[in-house]
């Protein structure tokens, strides 16, 4: 509990500082690619919302905004625990924060799981009533035409986001295992930091998805 495993920087770097700074820049570039990946869905969203405005608001009302709001709160909280986990690693000198890092990471992963559980209930409801993408759509309650497009985009956006949640959970779990071994301290916490950045991005995308899908 009271010791940490010292980190040696890789041979092709001059210093740990250079290694950290390079890793972080790489992560930010990666996050940019994620944003651009999602931008395609956002563009499609804008196009079809404007082509079929009435259908869009009618279809959006079929989503349960309460569940969406609950999930928003869950993700925001997980982002907060994640930020605190990074902070705990940054201030960890001799391993005194190890329990805190592990605990906060575990909380983040649990909240991510809670998010997925809520999503599961939402999805199964839709499977049941037929608010589904494309040719699988069979919901009778929407007057306007082409509602299957809204649900196509809904499932794509939330599905892709959900996959990112799962990936984020696995990354954070790996970070957690390493944190238990005492790998992270104030001189070396790159994986915690990068995992955190990834997780905040997942939150960031949801911050936009929530009002766009549930509240229009």
């Amino acid at each position, binding site marked *: 509990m009271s010791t940490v495993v010292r980190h040696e920087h890789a041979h092709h770097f001059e210093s740990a500082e250079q290694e950290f700074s*390079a890793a972080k820049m790489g992560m930010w570039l990666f996050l940019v690619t994620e944003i651009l990946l999602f931008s395609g869905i956002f563009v499609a969203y804008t196009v079809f919302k404007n082509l079929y405005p009435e259908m869009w608001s009618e279809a959006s009302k079929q989503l349960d905004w309460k569940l969406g709001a609950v999930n928003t709160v869950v993700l925001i909280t997980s982002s907060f625990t994640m930020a605190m986990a990074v902070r705990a690693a940054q201030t960890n000198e001799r391993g005194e924060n190890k329990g805190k890092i592990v605990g906060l990471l575990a909380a983040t992963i649990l909240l991510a799981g809670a998010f997925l559980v809520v999503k599961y209930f939402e999805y199964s409801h839709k499977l049941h009533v037929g608010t589904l993408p494309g040719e699988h759509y069979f919901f009778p309650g929407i007057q306007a035409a082409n509602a299957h497009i809204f649900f196509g985009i809904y499932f794509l956006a939330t599905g892709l986001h959900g996959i990112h949640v799962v990936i984020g959970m696995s990354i954070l779990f790996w970070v957690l295992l390493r944190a238990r071994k005492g790998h992270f301290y104030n001189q070396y916490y790159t994986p915690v930091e990068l995992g955190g950045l990834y997780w905040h991005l997942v939150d960031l995308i949801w911050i936009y998805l929530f009002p766009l899908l549930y509240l229009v």
Partner: protein
Amino acid sequence: MSASNSDTHAHAHGGNYFEAARGLKSWLITLDHKRIGVMYLFWVIAAFLFGGLLALGVRLELWAPGETIMSADTYNRFFTLHGLVMVFLFIIPGIPAALGNFVLPLQLGAKDVAFPRLNLLSFYIYVVGTCMALYSTIAGGVDTGWTFYTPYSATTGGSVVMMTLSAFILGFSSILTGLNFIVTVHKMRAPGMSWYRMPLLIWALYATSIIQVMATPVLGITLLLLAMERALGIGIFDPALGGDPVLFQHFFWFYSHPAVYIMILPGMGVVSELIATFSRKRIFGYRSIAFSSLAIAIISFLVWGHHMFVSGQSVYAGMIFSFLTFLVAIPSAIKVFNWTATLYQGSISMQTPMIWAFSFLILFTIGGLTGLFLGTLGTDVHLHDTYFVVAHFHYVMMGGTVMAFFGGVHYWWPKIFGRMYNEALAKISAVLVFVGFNVTFFTQFVLGTRGMPRRYYNYLPEFETLHKVSTMGVLIIGLGVTIMVLYLAKSLLSGEKAVANPWGAKTLEWTHAASPPVLHNFDETPVVEEPPYHYPAPGEESRPTKVPA
């Protein structure tokens, strides 16, 4: 020659990167950017040969009207696969991932790229993507053309989903390479290697990487949507379901137009190296060439609609895209003029890489200028989807990038493998490819302006002569490439040993590293004290390259 001192210098510490470890396993798990580059090199050359054979098939079928050697369906699959293999498996990874991987850290004076593990991962992703592409050709084939236009691609048979997923996967590989290069350029430069001391290849690769990182994810989502369209019928691109097929073209070209510059920019970088080295002259307009690479990268994102002039796109969008398209001509022309100015009063040596560089200059200029015809709204309505377009992009992609790629391969061959090749045969091969290329594709400009549509299986009898000429051109190219493969293979087996700097070049990989380089590239980190290509100015006496004590 300045080479000899650094040669002994590097060899003092023994084994090169081939000798550092032995056995298949040492290659499969290597993190060395040089080995990864070499593995890429063999793989992309194989892809090029495969794609070339497909092109040969297409051309042979077009030898005469009607069925010649294959059915119409097979023909559709052949040209689709030719496009996909050449674009995704050869040209996009060709210069950056194969040559760039090897050269970039060396030119920066770094021991490796910033993320060696990601580098290896990107190679394996590329291999998996290749296998998926090959599998999808066996399992049904794809006949959509490499552009996958909807709604046809959403309804046709064959294994379109597998092929789109393969391109999706290959996109990841490309992103990882680009990301790696950007961080490497920012964070791994040797002491003294300021931005304006970087060789122009680095600037070009940097600009390329920006496009790879910013554009490729959109290809990912596009292909994902297409796969969903086929799997679930989500209807986003299907007019019968309330969707918009032209939206697919927007998505596709947001990536694929910048991707055209992923293909050509590294070629421009290689040519900058070749022209400076073989003219023995400081490059003219270093900063203009460097910044024109970045300008091309940015402008490339603003012009994609010029592929869609006749798709039903809004006339206003068409006008804006047409106007912006002409802007690309400016940085491209800046480069060509600066290269030409570098040649002026240079002491030019016509060694093999330089022959390729000249081929590039001539063919790329023709390709670029014919692009302006196609960027003009009215003219494009006439030329759209004719052989003129085919000829145009082959002049840029093959006449430009492939010439630069082979120029680069011949230039860095001694550095990569430590052996020379047969110079006479190499020159013959380069000239054959140049001649064959023009016979093949200049004919197609004529075919196109006379109204021969691209991708057609059959044609009117009046086009027969020109088609025959074009097909003969391919055979000449094939002969040239065959000779090349043979003498390069011979060089690998029994080529004469290369010295560290056979060309008298000025960049770090020649002046400070052995041929082939040692495991960590340099025995000690080089310190850069000169601007790039610091050849003696006219009148100045020749002086040896500085080697740190």
